[in-house]
């Protein structure tokens, strides 16, 4: 274990957080609010990070273990310090509540313990939404994009942070790959801000809403989420962008370099779009009785489907009151999530595709035991290793959902609440059903449950392994 290099990278992560806090600080200055919450946090971050980050260690070799540990510890530290402004400004006086809210922000979950949002300072709310934007693409990818490229082993950091069953680079250099990803992310966010401004949304709201959409987070600055704007045009814009941010970013790169064919060929993208259209159709028919106009019905169905599928978690209607069929579809979509390599959570469509195809292969194999069957994705055969890792991922995922739902059951909420709360956290969605539905929130849970759910969010965002490795005793043994 290269402690010195891990420490150095963690120092850089905290330094970046301190730098990013200058943005909400500026917002606080513009709106004439107290800047002390941010100043104090920046000071604390600098004091801790500078000694670590100032000298680059001589031995900068890192292996898979260091990569996982750095990513996992980095995300915990980010959330731990990111929570300070909420506590210092007394927006969320209790530290554990603030930690839950920050984890929910960085992991782009969007689950909130706040009941009254609108009265909070604008700077604090800006930070709350900015955490979504940072967490969406990932902090370490950001570091890779800005730091001078140092050796090839940095790919281990990206591997541990970027979601999806298969992960690779777009171009030979890690740094350039990270820059391209952040570039696409940044440009798409700007386009959404402009689109929302054209829908006559106030600039502050347009910016924070775009942050939350881009990271597929779901924090809103209104108590009633997006419904509070009562702006159908903006709802369409947000829904379409939620769809866009749920697509694998590699596809945008292919469009940029003119390889449109590869985009159409992408099985994952087609499955994602098909699932979305099917779910919208069924739910629209199922809920048609509650709408007066067809347009409203389609808009509401599309918005709710894509908010769940892209694991964002905005809401325009309280789907908790919808028929059971629609709710069941939404719960299933919660588990599926969006495409790998996007900012969304969940199991990822490509993993579902692999699992589904392995299932078919298994059946074939049962029927004709000597047949050799190959699983293909995008027309190319995938290795057994990839399909095995997808199945083992599913089994760990199910185990964790079960354990976490069991743990939070001590608070006495209904089974539906506990199960969907766990799913909403581990898949980084935000709202679940019943007590944690779009109209409710997580404030009712005990501190113990909030910590469990915070961990679930981090586990879900980093795709399980980094967190487990950080807390596994095997990692910390001498050999």
């Amino acid at each position, binding site marked *: 274990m290269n402690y010195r290099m891990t420490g150095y990278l963690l120092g850089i992560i905290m330094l970046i957080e301190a730098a990013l806090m200058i943005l909400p600080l500026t917002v606080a200055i513009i709106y004439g609010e107290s800047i002390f919450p941010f100043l104090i946090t920046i000071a604390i971050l600098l004091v801790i990070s500078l000694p670590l980050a100032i000298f680059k260690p001589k031995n900068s070799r890192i292996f898979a273990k260091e990569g996982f540990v750095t990513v996992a510890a980095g995300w915990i530290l980010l959330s731990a310090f990111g929570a300070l402004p909420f506590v210092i400004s007394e927006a969320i006086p209790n530290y554990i509540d603030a930690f839950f809210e920050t984890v929910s922000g960085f992991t782009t979950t969007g689950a909130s313990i706040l009941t009254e949002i609108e009265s909070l300072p604008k700077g604090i709310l800006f930070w709350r939404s900015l955490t979504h934007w940072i967490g969406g693409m990932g902090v370490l990818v950001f570091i890779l994009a800005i730091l001078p*490229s140092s050796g*090839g082993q940095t*790919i281990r950091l990206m591997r541990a942070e970027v979601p999806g069953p298969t992960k690779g680079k777009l*171009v*030979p250099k890690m740094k350039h790959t990270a820059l391209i990803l952040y570039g696409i992310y940044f440009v798409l966010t700007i386009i959404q801000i402009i689109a929302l401004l054209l829908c006559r949304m106030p600039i502050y709201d347009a910016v924070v809403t775009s942050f939350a959409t881009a990271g597929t987070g779901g924090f809103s600055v209104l108590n009633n989420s997006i419904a509070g704007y009562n702006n159908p045009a903006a709802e369409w814009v947000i829904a379409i962008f939620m769809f866009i941010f749920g697509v694998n970013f590699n596809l945008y790169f292919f469009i940029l370099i003119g390889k449109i064919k590869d985009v159409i060929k992408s099985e994952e993208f087609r499955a994602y779009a098909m699932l979305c259209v099917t779910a919208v159709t069924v739910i629209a028919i199922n809920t048609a009785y509650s709408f007066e106009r067809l347009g409203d019905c389609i808009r509401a169905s599309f918005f709710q489907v894509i908010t769940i599928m892209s694991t964002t978690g905005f809401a325009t209607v309280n789907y908790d009151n919808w028929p059971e069929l629609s709710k069941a579809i939404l719960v299933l979509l919660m588990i599926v999530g969006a495409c790998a390599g996007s900012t969304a959570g969940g199991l990822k469509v490509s993993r579902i595709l692999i699992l589904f195809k392995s299932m078919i292969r298994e059946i074939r194999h049962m029927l004709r035991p000597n047949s050799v069957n190959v699983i293909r994705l995008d027309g190319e055969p995938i290795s057994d290793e990839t399909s095995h890792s997808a199945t083992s991922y599913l089994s760990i995922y199910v185990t964790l959902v079960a354990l976490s739902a069991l743990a939070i059951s001590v608070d006495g909420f209904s089974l539906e609440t506990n199960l969907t709360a766990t799913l909403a956290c581990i898949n980084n969605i935000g709202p679940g059903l019943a007590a944690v539905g779009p109209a409710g929130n997580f404030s009712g849970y005990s501190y113990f449950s909030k910590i469990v759910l915070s961990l679930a969010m981090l586990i879900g965002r980093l795709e399980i392994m980094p967190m487990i490795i950080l807390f596994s005793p095997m990692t910390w043994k001498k050999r």
Partner: protein
Amino acid sequence: MNIVVVGGGMVGATICSQLTLEGHNITLVDTDTSTLTEISNSYDVFGVSGNGADLAVLKKAGTEKADLLIAVTSSDEINILCCAAGKKLGVKNTIARVRNPEYTELMSFMRSELNLSLTINPELSVAKEIYRMLRFPSATKIDTFCRGRVEVAEFTVSEDSPLCGASLNDLRTRFNIRFLVCAVLRGGETYIPKGFFNIEAGDVICVTAPEEDITRFFKAAGVYKHPIKDVLIVGGNRITYYLEALLQKGKINSTVIEQDEQLCRELAEEYPCTVICNDGTNQDVLLEEGLAKTDAFLALSDTDEENAIISMYAKTQETNKIITLISAISYIDLFKSVGLESIVSPKFSTAAYILRYVRSMSNVRGAEIEALHKLMDGKVEVLEFRIKESIRDFTDIPLKEMKLRSGVLIACIVHKDKIIIPSGNDVISRGDTVLIVTTEAQIQEIGEILK
């Protein structure tokens, strides 16, 4: 530069590591996905799986927009095919590794008809390197610059050497020979020594001198060894095959010990050397073939371990000059620490060769890199630049007024056929060739040696 490397074997991996260090964009093509994963885990390269001679795979690797294609798979034919295909796709420069001696005569055909920019033959270049060492047995390693007129030699200072304890200024007045100590390796650190630097026993030093003076320097420094007349070689593979051709030309007698009958036959058919079909790791066999009396002993078998052990045995027999072939680059330091000084490695020389080509490709402004050699296990680089035009703050001013970066030294100037070991008053002018020695920076162009 965008570079596509085909083949992720030992040479491919070494090239990837060196070229990524120099900041190039590398795409690696290999049929084995686990090799790709392994290499892309350690170096910043982009992996594409597939056969490098397949057009679709080459396209996927971005060959159309690449500046250079390097084919170093284990198969000569694939390498040649791959470069031909790459050329068709529009890559500007192609390098193929071609090792089969039977194809040697095809080289010029391949260069003209298939437009190969460069063919490399690691075994041939190692054979050449060994031959150079044999010509100057006094040094552990020797490189030639300026069309053979300037030598840079590396050797270890022993305790009884007259160099011990003397400062460089003393030596210069005492010896009255044109030479320059351009780098010193002491305790794992490399230094560019100043005039008052004292040499100690155990230092490894690099000396630049004109070709006609280097032997005089070796004599004065007390490290002179008599020219080699006969050698004992263990291992009869390709390197030996190429080396024999050079040895015959240089009229050096040789005895080759090789266990494989087929290889023995091939060698005996081709060259008039003595070929012994026996086990070269057997001490009795070695002694019988005159290990103790031979001028030089070369351990060139296919296994590193065997080479290392028989070389250590030769050392106990006080053999004059021992050259060891080691393929695994990472263990070279270890072998040096047990006293095996002259180590050659095909991978290392191939990588250095390609590196030199890549550097000279990427640099044009004002000066061209004519040659690049790595000394002291790659810790020191010696570059030969030809100054094509005047450069500000560099040409036409005395060296003492030049603001050089630390870790950089101008070791030699060739001005109109005159070799100058420079002092503070010398001047570099247009058309000169200069030797630059550097310990830290990777110099891409001549301007970088200035502050």
